[in-house]
């Protein structure tokens, strides 16, 4: 078995017992990345930096008795997370040549634990999209079938982990951007509780919804990454104190007495029958291990997608206003005056989806429309939160499909933004309510493409979610891409 197929835990053991060196391991991954260039997962591969980091990690492994399990482990990071001295583009022409002079807090943390950055991962421009097709670097292809999308916006992150082009990856999730591609690519993706992981250095899309999280091969790896990245950051005022814990502890997959709520709104007509069957099968396996399943209702969920698109676009219209061609990023050099400089730089620097959302958000915040649009969306947001709160009085976990379908074909929804938006119907409510949710692979559809089950919990219940995920993983097993073996 290729070394790159191994989990972090397995690889870490090999590194510690000197069965493999960190540099050798990194080079294996770099080789794999080159071989799988057709997936288009990476925007930037930093070979030299990676080898240097691996050398440092090896020194740590050689000299220290206690090293982090991430020491020497090759990773990929979504290209909207700032990495000092390494280009960070948001897959946008606007930031195509932007190299930050600072690092995201989570990158600093991962560097300190000895993880090795292989490169920056492809994504939908500014994280706006559900297919990783809105990128100036070209679409990402689903490693399970190259004609299909990898999902988005963290499509590069999910496909890299699924195709063994990184031992793990970091993504960001504003409305499902970790969970949906994880589901499409058959890997584990966790969107942590809002505030649990620092956002400092994450290039903002919608500040009140964005959250960085891990994409991994299995649940244990996910827990391990959370141990490295969760926790308060004085540089992020919205990060919380005292909620991070040891996510590896008691990760035994026990689910007896667990009360699982199944919101009927997530099992509606939009849900593909095939996907529904895979999900029900996974739920049954939980039931057989002592969990109780009950149908419940979150009636306002039907308003989640419009509320989400209004709030996220409103915030985006403000967050993306700084890209004006003045201080950094793309600038049109022919502008004759300041208004032209703004207009042309933004016209040429942003892609169509980004512009669509900026327009929508600007409109939603405008005086005369704000009450009807943005403020109403905020009301929906608080009602959705309340509905989740009351559901959590009765249930420990809410389970649902991550997506209504398996991955769709490249180009299929590119010209129909509304259809694309509706792909997020099961994921956006979680961000509106600031809750943690994980997508765990639980089988394949008839088309051979992976299906993910989504587990949603109370704020800071990541340990519980990981534990339930562990049970599913034990029952169903990891999904591994057979046809790529031997490449």
């Amino acid at each position, binding site marked *: 078995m290729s070394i790159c197929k191994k989990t972090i835990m397995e690889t870490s053991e090999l590194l510690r017992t000197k069965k493999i060196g960190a540099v050798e391991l990194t080079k294996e991954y770099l080789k794999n990345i080159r071989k799988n260039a057709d997936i288009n997962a990476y925007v930037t591969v930093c070979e030299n930096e990676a080898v240097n980091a691996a050398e440092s990690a090896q020194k740590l492994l050689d000299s220290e008795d206690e090293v982090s399990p991430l020491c020497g482990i090759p990773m990929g990071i979504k290209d*909207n*997370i*700032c990495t000092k001295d390494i280009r*960070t583009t*948001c897959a946008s022409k606007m*930031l195509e040549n*932007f190299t*930050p*002079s*600072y690092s*995201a807090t989570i990158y600093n943390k991962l560097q300190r634990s000895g993880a090795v950055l292989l490169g920056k991962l492809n994504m939908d421009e500014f994280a706006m999209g559900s297919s990783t097709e809105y990128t100036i670097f070209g679409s990402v292809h689903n490693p399970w079938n190259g004609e299909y999308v990898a999902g988005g916006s963290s499509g590069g992150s999910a496909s890299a982990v699924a195709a063994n082009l990184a031992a793990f990856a970091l993504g960001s999730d504003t409305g499902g951007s970790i969970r949906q591609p994880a589901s499409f690519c058959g890997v584990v993706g966790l969107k942590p509780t809002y505030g649990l992981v620092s*956002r*400092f*250095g*994450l*290039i*903002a899309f*919608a*500040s*009140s919804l964005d959250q960085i999280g891990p994409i991994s091969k299995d649940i244990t790896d996910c827990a391990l990454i959370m141990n490295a990245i969760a926790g308060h950051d*004085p*540089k*992020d*005022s*919205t990060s919380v104190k005292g909620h991070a814990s040891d996510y590896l502890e008691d990760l035994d997959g026990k689910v007896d007495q667990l009360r699982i709520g199944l919101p009927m709104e997530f099992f509606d007509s939009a849900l593909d029958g095939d996907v529904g069957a895979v999900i029900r099968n996974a739920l049954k396996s939980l039931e057989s291990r002592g969990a109780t399943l009950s149908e419940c209702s979150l009636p306002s969920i039907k308003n989640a997608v419009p509320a989400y698109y209004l709030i996220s676009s*409103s*915030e985006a*219209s*403000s967050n993306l*206003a*700084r890209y*004006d061609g*003045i*201080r*950094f990023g793309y600038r049109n050099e022919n502008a004759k005056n*300041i208004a032209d400089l*703004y207009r042309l730089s933004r016209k040429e620097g942003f892609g169509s989806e980004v512009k669509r959302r900026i327009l929508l958000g*600007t409109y939603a*915040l*405008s*005086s005369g429309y*704000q009450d009807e649009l*943005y403020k109403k969306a905020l009301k929906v947001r608080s009602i959705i939160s309340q509905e989740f709160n009351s559901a959590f009085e009765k249930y420990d976990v809410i389970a649902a499909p991550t997506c209504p379908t398996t991955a769709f074909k490249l180009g299929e929804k590119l010209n129909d933004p509304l259809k694309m938006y509706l792909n997020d119907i099961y994921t956006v409510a979680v961000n509106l309510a600031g809750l943690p949710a994980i997508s765990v692979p639980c089988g394949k559809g008839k088309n051979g493409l992976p299906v993910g089950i989504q587990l949603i919990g109370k704020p800071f219940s990541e340990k519980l979610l990981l534990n339930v995920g562990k049970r599913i993983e034990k029952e169903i097993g990891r999904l591994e891409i057979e046809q790529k073996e031997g490449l």
Partner: protein
Amino acid sequence: MDYDIIIGLEIHVELKTSSKIFCGCSNEFGGEPNTRCCPICLGMPGTLPVLNKKVLEYTIKAGLAMQCKIAKFSKFDRKNYFYPDMSKAYQVSQYDLPICYDGYVDIDVGDKTKRIGIERIHIEEDAGKLIHDSNGQESLIDYNRCGVPLIEIVTRPDLRSPEEAKILLETIKSILEYTEVSDCKMQEGSLRADVNLSLKRKGSKSLGVRTEMKNINSLRAVQRAAQAEAERQAGILGSGCEVYQETRRWDDNKGESFIMRGKEEAMDYRFFPEPDLPPVCVDEKFLKAIQASIPQLPRQRRERYVNDLGIPRYDADLITSNKHLADVFERASEVCGNPKLVSNWIMTDIMRRINEKGEEILNSHINGDNLGWILSSMERGEITHASAIQVIDVLIETGEEPGNIIERLGLKVQRDEALVVKAVKEVINKNPQALSDYLSGKEKAVGFLMGKSMAALKGRGDPIQVREILKKELQSYL
């Protein structure tokens, strides 16, 4: 005029915290362009703001000093607009839930006291500065000021004359100086005012259309701008035309204002809650600690000086108009125990020097301790009045310790009786004409000899002692 003038002010004040509002950059004025900034105040992608707690403290302090209520729950909002001076293309401000609201400031207009309402005080961040080159081809941006903490004080439209506007601004300036939340250096732009003005036909209940004049940065200019605007509007109304709601720019050199934008061009700032900053909750303990740190304010100090220390009202007014001066006065009075003497000196010799050399002399060389020491030395007769003035001048010039100055220049009053007797005897011997005048009954001669004796002692004799000795010596000739 047939109209009542209705004026409200919006006053922007830079807080003198040591660092900026959302990052660790220095909050000092000036510096080489773009040397006091970092990725956060430059609005680089991915950076986030963290509120400087001192900003909250200073704002609440200013609010309490202006009798405001302090919101238990307050939040920040984004004010969105495109202009290169604001690095994020939005300004973090407070929209509907300001931290301080519903306060007032009492001002003295003539011999009457008038209460002016303070509608709100909120926190926001300052923008950078645009520098346009002379040929109009290039604009440069200096972001040193970007992210400097500001408060905006919004008054109610309670002012009825340009003079009242100026007095209010003066009063607020001194409150801010007393509470030490701002330098209030208007020439550096750390205090600037917008004047909102409308005219109301006398007797009518409905208000007129108001205009706003932006960024006026001197007390005098506020009064002038308001006066000119009142006249402009009266002229328009008088000719049967309408005043338009607009934003104007006051040009203090030309003495007139120019339109910046009309109502139609009013910006839509698309305010919404700043998602990067959690709401602010102020607890009782924090509030009490701030309350306890507020010093006695100018009006209260003035009353105390008049009623308890017996200082003339005019003098007390002038001394309390400047916190440094008032502090020097209080400390010097404590040291020398004679407030009236200190007040007299401040009103004459100290004020003259401040006018000549600038207010800085109070911060650098003259303080309550050394002034009090000099005056008490004089009171004890250790130095003469003339020497005291000399010591103060040297002190301002060099900053040398007054005791040293007296020592070095030998200003100590000469009391050695033998020396004085010797000097007096010599004077009498050298002036036989004066002696014979005295002996012939001309008392004037005493004055002449007295002057000569003091001169012989290089001005350092104790006049009383010298006079006594001189009289004794002269009597010995009788």
